[in-house]
């Protein structure tokens, strides 16, 4: 354990304020009951990626504890997992009544409040996962793929499911449709620059944007329309730059807030990108998970790419987590 802590410290000095985690599955031949190559939660070290905790085939999303970012919360196929000690020590916080978790969102303005979306609803805990309450009662269809807490407005949540984007102003007690009606939502993100700016990636419908704090979303051009987008991100270092990832779309960048797009697939082994993340600590650095290939990294906003590791994986989420509380 001491060795691991040293590695963490080294990593911290190299990457500044953030730790980079990836949730992935190396599951080309895996079905339930079969042998699973190393999969689950990985941490970027100075030289490679290090597997954390248990081998796990289905981790969809992660977030961190506001008061102690060494504690992660993992939305997994078999429950919500508290992964403490920088992801090494795991404990299930949920029981037999929920399965197939799709997203987790910690309210970083409300200590101890954790939300997750799953295949049949949305749940909240206000005591760090000791007890849970269902919140999807007001939703016609319960399947929830994406869930975000508005960091600027207490009680505001956005959820993306089978029938579009829904917004709640009362902590999930009631919901109103906010846009993308009839489309399945795959990812929701809030701008790190302007909290009233939101983006939503969808299946078939392309990209949707909100400029009024998530109250309404409108289609944002033709990017991804007809195909399936898997991820979207604002560049934390440039308010004009956004990126989307998807099946056949690969990775595309807009330098003008979505008005125009450039494909950035040159150097990627296939145009099927499952996840992406901008490095908040280094301008121009961008990661992309290429389906069943590897994680790729670019130092020039996707104009060129090199393989970064996690060979053969499907990377479901790439997240930069602050090294310390309050960042």
């Amino acid at each position, binding site marked *: 354990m001491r060795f691991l802590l040293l590695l963490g410290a080294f990593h911290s000095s190299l990457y500044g304020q953030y730790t980079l985690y990836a949730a992935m599955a190396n599951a080309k031949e895996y079905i*339930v*009951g079969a042998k699973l190559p190393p999969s689950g939660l990985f941490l970027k070290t100075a030289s490679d990626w290090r597997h954390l905790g248990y081998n*796990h085939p289905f981790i969809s999303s992660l977030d961190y504890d506001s008061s102690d970012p060494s504690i992660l919360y993992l939305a997994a196929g078999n429950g919500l997992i508290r992964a403490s000690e920088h992801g090494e020590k795991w404990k299930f916080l949920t029981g*037999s009544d929920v399965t197939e978790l799709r997203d987790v969102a910690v309210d970083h303005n409300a200590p101890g409040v954790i939300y997750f979306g799953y295949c049949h609803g949305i749940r909240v805990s206000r005591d760090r996962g000791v007890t849970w309450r269902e919140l999807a009662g007001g939703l016609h*269809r319960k399947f929830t793929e994406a869930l975000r807490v508005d960091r600027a407005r207490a009680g505001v949540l956005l959820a993306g499911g089978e029938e579009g984007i829904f917004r709640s102003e009362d902590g999930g007690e009631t919901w109103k449709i906010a846009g993308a009606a009839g489309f399945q939502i795959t990812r929701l993100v809030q701008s790190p620059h302007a909290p009233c700016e939101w983006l939503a990636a969808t299946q078939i419908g392309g990209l949707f944007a909100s400029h009024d704090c998530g109250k309404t979303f409108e289609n944002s051009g033709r990017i991804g329309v007809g195909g399936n987008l898997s991820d979207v991100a604002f560049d934390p270092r440039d308010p004009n730059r956004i990126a989307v990832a998807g099946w056949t779309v690969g990775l595309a960048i807009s330098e003008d807030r979505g008005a125009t797009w450039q494909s950035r697939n040159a150097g990627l082994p296939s145009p099927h990108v499952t996840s992406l993340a901008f490095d908040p600590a280094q301008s121009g650095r961008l990661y992309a998970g290429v389906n069943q290939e590897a994680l790729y990294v670019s130092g020039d906003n996707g104009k060129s790419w090199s393989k970064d590791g996690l060979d053969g994986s499907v990377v479901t989420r790439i997240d930069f987590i602050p090294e310390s509380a309050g960042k």
Partner: protein
Amino acid sequence: MKIAACLSILASLSAFAQTPLFADRKLAIVDAYAHYQGKGDYGYAQIAAKLWRHEDAAWCSRKLEQLLAAGPVGDMFWMFPVTAIAYLDRGQLSESARTALRRSWKSYMPYRGDTENHFLLYYTSLYLMSQLWPHQSGEMWYTGKSSEENLEEARQWIESWVKLTTTRGQGEYDSPHYMGVYLIPMSYLAAWAKDPAMKKRATMMLDYLIADYAPENLDGLYVGAHARVYEDQLVEKWNGVSSDFGWLWFGLGHPLPLPDNYALYYSLASAYQPPEILKQIATARAKPYTHYERKRTRNRWRFFDDLHGRVYKTTYVRREYAVGSDQGGVLQPIQQHSWDVTWSVPDARGVENTFFTIQPYSSARELQTYFVFDPDSGTAGVVKSKKTYDSPDKLLGGSPYEKLFQDKDTLIALYDIQPETRFPHVNGFFSKDLTQTTEDSSGWIFMRGGGSTYIACRPLEPYTWKPIAGGGRRLFSPYLKNGFVVQVAAASEYPDLAAFGRAIAKLPLEFALDPVPSVRFQSLRGATLEFTYGNTPKVNGKPLDYNHWPLFGGPFLEAAVDSEKLVLKHGKMRRTLDFRNLTTTDSVDPEFPSAP
């Protein structure tokens, strides 16, 4: 199949008289693994079988440590074998083997899976291991939870599953393969649960699950509609786990050459022997009967308002054959089998004694209904393990464009296929083991199945024949509005196939294909059947009452939806399973006439 192992079990079985006793059948299954004769060894199953027999304890310890050192693999399919080993230890394993086993429940995190059987195996194993190692903190378990927390979580799920099953039916119902992974957990809990209520509940569920199979078997073969079946057992109905259990419980048919390890683990725990009433239900075929069941779909995460849809099953059984069906539609993903005719043969091994049609359907929408897959990689992921899922030639799976209606031994299948679907045609399975087939000028196809059964099939649209690898023919009809009328009869009812054909050709049949397929047919049994695609079928002008379809109904089983109560009936014998009060009551029906 490992030939030496097959020979071993066959040799051991041939030592018995024609129908060995239950205890001998059970022993033969255990010995097939304990004294496994194939190459190498049989891993956890062999360890468990030897421990049960109190044999070779030193080998068992060594082997167990070796397997655990190599790293557990298999999720819940690892959990249940090592749970059996832990309970069959009874002082035989070495301390180091026991320690390695204990350690593995901390070092390895089995995935809980995504099906009903995965959860039941997972939680039953966790329940029993938490019971075995009580008062241990979360530091000792992969869950991070204490023994008591694990036990409670597992108890809650198991009890909720029993309640759901006894009120709304199983979701993964009547599977000739997966029936084994429901029987194992109940056998374990009946044998090893310390809580008397859990023990009793599990024992009652064994009766319940066996009762679910008993009226729908023909010579041990599981007939009719299934939630899940594999293609090899779909056409060679003997070739599956249900043959092991039919033989073990009732001496019916033949077990697999090496009985599946599902039958082994069942036998190593409670090895529950069904009561006489279940034996009678499983074997009484003197009088034809219609059996009804209501089941539910698998969890539908998307595209439906209700988590579970209703499944309405009808199964007609007589000595010579069985006809069984659901109502059609996509009720389960990938492996659904919606209807078939099965004819009796003296020895079903290697025989494809069945007939059915399907609309071959595959779609990302189907997968997204039942799984959390993304749409692009989902189908490819399924095809990794279910090879024919996305094949136009396939014979397995439900279709949203198929509607079925059965009355006794008459079945009408109607298809209204959307042109944009992936495979816009229907397939019919015509077995290599049909002993006669005649394409009559009337449009009917007349067939003889084995020596016992005549089958008439009237395709509503033209068709062509395509060969099936391994024998038989596939009827292929590319017409979008389509259908089949099927009438079955015992060969003993007619002098020959030609006479049967003449009788069928005389039956009034009217049909139309536009705007949707519609059939009006007077069955061989005298009923006027009306069925229009998408409408409720009618028998003699009266619509089928789906709203009052019983959980179980027919001469042998009786259960109302939501009742948590099942009554088994045969002659004067009655057994009542009351899950609300956890009681089993055997009684005699005084009203029943003396001559059954």
